[in-house]
């Protein structure tokens, strides 16, 4: 497990990083924690000539209250985000998803922006980001631009970030008072999710006023289950009503088939997990989930 030789640079600022990126172009890879990139390099699935480490850019770390949103620096670790009181209060779905993300070692090394930019459809953060309507702040040689979550994920391991750009911040709109649940289905603990469902709901008494649902590993990108969301709005948070809405979960999905399950099984799982996630987010003591 020895990677091919590469040059390593660790810039101290975003501007320096952008210069390094423009200099080395498609021969460079950004490392932002390394929890996905290092295995790729060690297994020689990729052999970039340059590795640009964002780990020494302090301005990319930390969580700031932006009024109607929380702004998470791209290099903030999962551990920091998962234990942040503001995130817990205003974006509970993120807290719930990070609690299920990999293991403690990965959560301490891996970063929020790194995982999202890697855009693994089986990653745990894409579905919450889509469900919460996060905005991605991307910086390049010609300045800064913002991309919405619906446009950020382009394809398998592909995002709206261009080769000469860096993801610097993720803005998560506040969902204060919304319930949330992340239902992750795995066979063993350290596995990527076979399917996972991220749900967050705003209750009005016993009625689901609004719901946001994201799907993990149900297609080439993290998906948003808009048909489910629409069907849930204004419904009572009963098992039957939620189940009826959850039946729409497979709509528009294109799940993979692999050793852990065929596509049709994944569609079935998405339906079951959506029902369970929504009921849990609504504070209903649903059926015991295992």
């Amino acid at each position: 497990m020895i990677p091919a030789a590469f040059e390593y640079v660790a810039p101290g600022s975003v501007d320096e990083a952008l210069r390094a990126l423009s200099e080395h172009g498609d021969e460079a890879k950004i490392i932002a924690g390394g929890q996905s990139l290092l295995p790729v390099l060690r297994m020689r699935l990729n052999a970039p000539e340059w590795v640009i480490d964002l780990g020494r850019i302090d301005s990319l770390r930390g969580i700031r209250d932006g009024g109607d949103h929380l702004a998470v620096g791209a290099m903030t670790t999962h551990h920091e985000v998962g234990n942040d009181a503001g995130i817990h209060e205003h974006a509970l779905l993120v807290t719930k998803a990070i609690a299920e993300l990999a293991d403690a070692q990965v959560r301490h090394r891996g970063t929020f922006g790194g995982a999202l930019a890697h855009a693994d459809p089986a990653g745990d953060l894409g579905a919450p980001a889509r469900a919460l309507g996060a905005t991605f702040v991307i910086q390049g040689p010609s300045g800064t631009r913002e991309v919405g979550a619906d446009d950020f994920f382009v394809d398998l391991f592909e995002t709206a970030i261009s080769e000469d750009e860096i993801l610097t911040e993720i803005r998560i709109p506040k969902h204060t008072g919304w319930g949330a649940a992340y239902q992750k289905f795995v066979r063993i603990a350290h596995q990527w999710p076979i399917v996972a469902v991220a749900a967050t709901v705003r209750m009005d008494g016993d009625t689901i006023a609004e719901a946001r649902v994201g799907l993990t590993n149900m297609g080439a990108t993290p998906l948003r289950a808009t048909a489910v969301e629409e069907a849930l709005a204004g419904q009572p948070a009963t098992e039957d009503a939620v189940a009826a809405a959850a039946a729409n979960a497979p709509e528009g999905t294109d799940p993979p088939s692999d050793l852990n399950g065929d596509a049709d099984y994944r569609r079935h799982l998405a339906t079951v997990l959506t029902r369970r996630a929504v009921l849990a987010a609504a504070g209903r003591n649903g059926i015991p989930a295992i």
Partner: protein
Amino acid sequence: MTATQDAPVAEIGRDRRRKEDQRLITGRTRWTDNITLPGMLHLAMVRSPFPHARISGIDTTAAKASTNVVAVLTGADLGEGQGACINAWPVVEDQVTPAHVPMPSDRVTFAGEIVAVVVARTAAEARDAAELVEVDYEELPAALDLKDAAENKVLAHPDLGTNVSAVWRFDSAEAGTGGDVEEAIAKARDGGIVIEREYRQQRLIPAFMEPRSVVVDPTGEQITVWSATQIPHILRFAIAASTGVSESKIRVIAPDVGGGFGGKLQQTPEEMIAFAVARRLGKPVKYTETRSESLLSAHHGRDQWQRLTLAADKDGNVTGLKVDLLADLGSYVAIVGGGVPVLGAFMFNAIYKFPAYQFQTTNVLTNKTWTDAYRGAGRPEATYAVERLMDELAAEVGVDPLEIRERNWIKHEEFPFTTVAGLEYDSGNYEAATARAKEMFGYDALRAEQAERRERGDRVQLGLGVSTFTEMCGLAPSRVLGSLNYGAGGWEHAEVRMLPTGKVEVVTGASAHGQGHETAFSQIVADRLGVPFEDVEILHGDTQISHKGLDTYGSRSLVVGGEALVKAVDKVIEKAKPVAAHLLEASVDDLEFGGGRFTVKGTDQGMAVTEIATAVFAAHNLPDGVEASLDSEATYDPVNFNYPHGTHLCAVEVDTETGQVKMRKYAACDDIGQIINPLIVAGQVHGGLVQGIAQALWEEAVYDENGTLVSGSFVDYLLPTAADTISFDLDHTTSPCTTNSLGAKGVGEAGTIASTPAVVNAVVDAIRHLGVNDIQMPCTPERVWRAINGGAK
């Protein structure tokens, strides 16, 4: 000389933390990969991506020109000098055994086979250059599916004309150990019960923690080989036999070795290639595999289809069992690969009194990685089949699975008992172990809860699984192995050296790779010789220090190696006795030995054996004709296998909506005779249980239709961790083994053998009322879900 010692605490039976763990856990020790020699070169292997192909050309030009590359060698370059990987157990006289050249020059027969080796000054440079070796392959049709291969649809080795390596049979009517199985089946078809099933033993990967590594130093008079192996002694013999290098010119050292589970019971191509390259270049070389290479090319385990016919009367008394196996050997017959299903042949009758039994295995060559011993080796497969069948029989008769077992098992007053497979079980008490397991488990309460959940139609159903296993271990009586055409004996050797300072060095021919020999053997010596535990040093795993040995596998080290040690210690005491008599001016007949001291009966006159060791070293005052050494050695060959047994009970919850299986409770009562160190036993049982549970639920080596190992990393080969298991409830009953003085039975494989059927029985039990009577392993959520919904996968 005064005798004011405190009464010694018995070491045998005492929880002792393992003395080797500090260095093993911190890694500050001699793992093979930690060894660095002056001028050492590094190897990287070029492996075939195809399961079956002709090598039409290899271009090494670019690789040879790469930075710091010393040599790039192909099979043609190494030629006959590379020796061969040997098969030590041809199970039948006419076994078809493909020649196994470590690095072939003409044809590859599995994906992962080595076609070239790069030698460079650093491991990174070797790896870089390996990417530059260009190999032209002409793909050949590959034999991949076991059933198709058995019918010779595609030949794994076209030159051999068949894929069938061997057909090995046992029939109790022919052997005179029981009745005719066809008669029993015919009779059962008329008013009795016949259960016919086909079970799959999926292919598994041993997945030891330390990847394999080998260092070869050809400088000096001997060639020294360090290898992460379970079998330094056998490896030395195999290298010598296959290369023609004199055995006395080869020293093999297994330094600290990080696990094996049978996976390091092999003479590997990598070791042979490193040996050949080191000799050719005259320089020390090192090869350490990557985890991916390990999963791909270290031998795999299991991989059988089992066709089973169980005959019983209408009350569930078994009248006969017929077993027809297909066993996938992979593309070569590994060192004992063909013998693994044969070991299983003796275990299909398990703890039961089957009147008639017939077994046949067809060993089949395919274009996949070779298979060989993996924790339990044949016995888990057999135990799985019979314990699954007993549950099916219980369901057919309509009684509790424990009741059906009790109707058929050997009662404790019937020991010793000669089984229908011809083994003599010396001791056991299935009633006692079962009673204790039931009590720990809360069996009746869980059965009641299961009934309630079924009644309510809960989404999460409860299932209870039973496994009452036994196994044969402690390989083994040499003459029995000889009768099976096994290539070696089953004895073990030990030596005890009394040092002048009173310390004791023990040399064992067993070769620890994580078992805790240093601790357990020290406890035996401390008790038997009456010296402090801390004063005993155990030396092993080096053919120059331990010149005789048959190494570690098959739960044999304690029951064979430990017994050899007892005999060597007894010789030390016998040799010390005349010296003690001489120094104490007493008659030999007036001496007694206990607590490490010889005392003159009826007096307080005495002398410690360690003091005698000092006196013998000085040799100033020895009786005439007595040699100036207490050192002693012994070789022990057991008269029988030993037969640990136990009752394992497992409860699982099955989510009928998703098929997810969750462990709820696991209770096991094992009977392994006298326990030397309960803490080590608990560790063996815990690890074994998880490995067996993993076969039931998680692990499977999967090849695709191109012969590529899909589960080639831990992303897809689902090795569990502590996070995936529950806390186990364990206890023991004690039926001492009657054929060794320690009364001990092996425990290294018990957990793995017992747990797999316990778990699958529980899964099937949870959903049997939904019309399910089998789930293929591993019981993935998808398979369980499809079974519930009427379509198997």
